[in-house]
C-alpha cells in the first residue's frame, strides 16, 4: 500500500493542522508583511498611530461581519450576493421601527429576524426552487435593494426621525460608541459574534455538516446529512450577519442609506478568499475570514494614507486578489 500519507506521526501538531489553518498561516504572513510595509511607506508614522489603528478596526468590522456570513455560504459550496442589499434593507427596517416608537431591543430583535427571513428566502430559492446560488442571490440582491429604495423613496432615513433623544443616543452607541481608550463597541460585537460563529463552524454538528456539503454534496447526502437544512442554515447565518452589519453601519453614520453596503458582499468575498476560504467550498474558517478582512482593511487604509487615489486603490486590490489566488493555485498544483 502507498505509505506516503502515513509517515507522519499521529501526534505531530503540524499534521493535525487542517488545510484552512495552513492557509491562515500563509495569509497571516502576508498580512504582517503588508502591515510592516505600510508602517514604513506611509510618511510621518501616521499609519502606526492609535487613531489610525482604531480606524482600521472600524473598517474591518464591516468586512468581517458580512464576511462571516459569506464564509458559511462559501464553505457549503454556495455564495450570497444579496448580503450588501440585506445590509441596506436592515438599516432601513431598524430606523423605521425606532421612528415608529418601537423600543430599541425589540427593534433590534425584529431587524435580526428579518435578516434571517432574507436568508430563508435565499435558501428557499436555492434549495427548493433549485436556482443556482449565484443567480438566486443575484436576484434577491436586486429585490432587497429595490425594496430598500421603495421603502424610503430612494432618500436616506436619518436617525433624527426617532422621537426619543435617549433612544437616538443609545442607538448611536451601538456602532459609533467607544470604550474609554477608544476601542469601538462594534469591534467587540464583531469579536464576540466571530467567536460564536467560529465555535459553531468548528465544533458543532451543523458546522461539520456545512463542510461536508461543500466538500462533496453527494457524499454528504448519502451519509444521511440533511443537505437542504444545512445549507438553509448557512444562508440564514449570512442574512443574520448582514442584519447585524446593517444595524452597526446605520448607527455609526446616523442614517439608513438605501444604497448602503453596495458591493460590500464582493469585498467580503474577496476578504474571505484572501484569508484562505475556498470559493468552491469545503475549506476555510472564521479565522481565515478575520485575517482576510484585516488584509483588506490594512490595504485600503494604507493605500489611502500613502496618497493613492481610490481609483488606483481598486486597481491595486484587484491585482492583489488575483495574484494571491494564482499563488495558491500554483502551490496547489505543486502539491499534487
Amino acid at each position: 500500500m502507498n505509505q506516503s500519507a502515513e509517515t507522519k506521526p499521529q501526534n505531530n501538531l503540524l499534521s493535525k493542522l487542517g488545510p484552512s489553518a495552513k492557509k491562515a498561516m500563509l495569509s497571516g504572513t502576508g498580512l504582517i508583511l503588508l502591515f510592516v510595509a505600510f508602517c514604513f511607506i506611509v510618511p510621518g508614522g501616521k499609519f502606526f498611530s492609535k487613531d489610525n489603528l482604531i480606524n482600521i478596526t472600524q473598517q474591518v468590522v464591516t468586512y468581517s461581519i458580512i464576511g462571516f456570513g459569506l464564509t458559511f455560504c462559501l464553505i457549503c459550496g454556495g455564495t450570497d450576493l444579496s448580503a450588501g442589499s440585506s445590509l441596506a434593507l436592515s438599516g432601513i427596517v431598524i430606523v423605521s421601527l425606532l421612528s415608529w416608537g418601537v423600543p430599541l431591543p425589540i427593534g433590534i430583535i425584529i431587524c435580526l429576524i428579518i435578516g434571517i427571513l432574507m436568508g430563508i428566502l435565499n435558501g428557499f430559492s436555492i434549495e427548493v426552487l433549485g436556482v443556482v446560488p449565484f443567480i438566486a442571490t443575484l436576484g434577491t440582491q436586486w429585490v432587497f435593494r429595490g425594496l430598500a429604495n421603495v421603502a424610503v423613496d430612494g432618500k436616506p432615513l436619518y436617525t433624527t426621525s426617532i422621537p426619543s433623544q435617549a433612544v437616538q443616543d443609545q442607538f448611536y452607541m451601538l456602532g459609533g460608541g467607544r470604550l474609554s481608550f477608544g476601542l469601538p463597541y462594534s469591534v467587540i460585537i464583531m469579536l464576540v459574534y466571530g467567536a460564536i460563529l467560529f465555535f459553531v463552524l468548528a465544533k458543532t454538528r451543523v458546522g461539520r455538516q456545512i463542510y461536508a456539503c461543500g466538500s462533496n454534496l453527494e457524499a454528504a447526502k448519502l451519509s444521511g446529512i440533511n443537505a437542504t437544512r444545512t445549507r438553509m442554515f448557512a444562508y440564514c447565518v449570512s442574512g443574520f450577519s448582514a442584519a447585524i452589519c446593517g444595524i452597526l453601519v446605520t448607527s455609526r453614520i446616523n442614517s439608513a442609506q438605501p444604497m448602503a453596503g453596495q458591493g460590500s458582499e464582493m469585498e467580503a468575498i474577496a476578504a474571505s478568499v484572501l484569508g484562505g476560504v475556498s470559493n468552491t467550498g469545503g475549506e476555510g474558517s472564521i479565522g481565515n475570514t478575520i485575517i482576510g478582512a484585516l488584509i483588506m482593511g490594512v490595504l485600503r487604509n494604507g493605500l489611502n494614507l500613502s496618497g493613492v487615489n481610490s481609483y488606483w486603490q481598486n486597481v491595486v486590490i484587484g491585482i492583489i486578489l488575483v495574484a494571491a489566488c494564482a499563488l495558491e493555485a500554483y502551490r496547489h498544483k505543486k502539491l499534487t
Partner: protein
Amino acid sequence: MAEELFRMEGISKSFPGVKALQNVSFSVNKGEVHGLVGENGAGKSTLMKVMSGVYRADEGKIFIENQEVKIDSVAKGHQLGVNIIFQELNLAPHLSVADNIFIGRPPKKGPIISDRQMHADAKKILDELGININTHTVVRNLSVAQQQMVEIAKAISYNSKILVLDEPTAALSEKEIAQLFEIIRNLQKKGVGMVYISHRMEELGQICERVTVLRDGQYIGTRNYKDLTMDELVNMIVGRTLEDKYPKYQRTIGDVVFKAENIRRKNIVNVDKLEVRAGEILGIAGLMGSGRSEIVRCIFGADKADSMELTMNGKPIKVRNPRPGHCPWHWLRHRRP
C-alpha cells in the same frame, strides 16, 4: 444451514420508461460474501440502492433477521445496519479521515464535537481492520486504495450487519486487492454479511460462497460458486451459450495507420512506441493511475507532452489542442473510473 441475515422478495422498481428491476429476490447469510453479477445495466446497482435506502422499491418486501423492515432513507438503512460502498467513492475530500468516518454523526459532549474522542474512535476502527492511516490526514491526499479503506472503516463504524461493495477492486493493484480481501475475511469472522459486485470472475471464486445473477433487471438464479463452471456462469450472465469466449472475427489487418513514438510527460507517461494498423483494435491495459488515460490524453492533445512524435498515414502530424476528428471526445469520457 447458515443463518439468514437479510432477504429481499419480489423487488420491482421502474424508472420512467425503464423497468430496472422485475420481481428480484436476494438474500445474504451471516458471515457470507454473496457475489452479485450481471452485465452493465442488469440492475445490480439499482438493487443495491433499493437495499440501502437510496431508492424505494415499487413492490417487494425486505426482511432483516426475518423481521420485515422498510428502508425508506439512507439514514434508516444505516440504523438497520445496511451500508453500501459505492463504486465512485463518496468521501469529502477536504475533510480528515476521522471526519469522514464519522460524517454526519460525530461524537459529541453536549453540543460540542469531541475531536479527541472522534480521532481515538476512528483509530480504533482502523486498527481493528488492520488499516494503517493517520486519522488526521486530509482525504484528498490519500491514494484511491486508501480512500476505499476509509470507506470500509466508515461503513463499519455504523455497526454494519450488511455491507455492499460495488466493484471495490476496479482501481486496486494486486497487493491492495489482497489487503482488501483480508479485511473482508476479517469482517466475515465477525458475522458481517457482504454483497460483492464485480466483473472479475476470478475474484468471485476467491471470496464468494454464493453468486446471484441478474440480467436485464430480472432474477436469473443463485448458485453455489463451487458447483458452477465458468461457462455456466457466463451463460447465466449473457443468456445464451457462448461457443467461444473470445470469438474470432475475420478481419484483414492492413498497414500502420497511426504511430506515436517517444511519448513522454513528466514521470507519468513513458512510451517508446505505439502503432495502430488499419482494421485493428488496440487495447491499452493497466490499473487506474498507471498512465492509460494519460497516454491517450497526450496523443489527443489534452495534456501537453514533453516529447511526442505522431505519424498519421506516414505523414508526421502535430497536435496542440484537443480537436474533434483527431480522435473522438468519447475516447476520454468512456474510460472506467
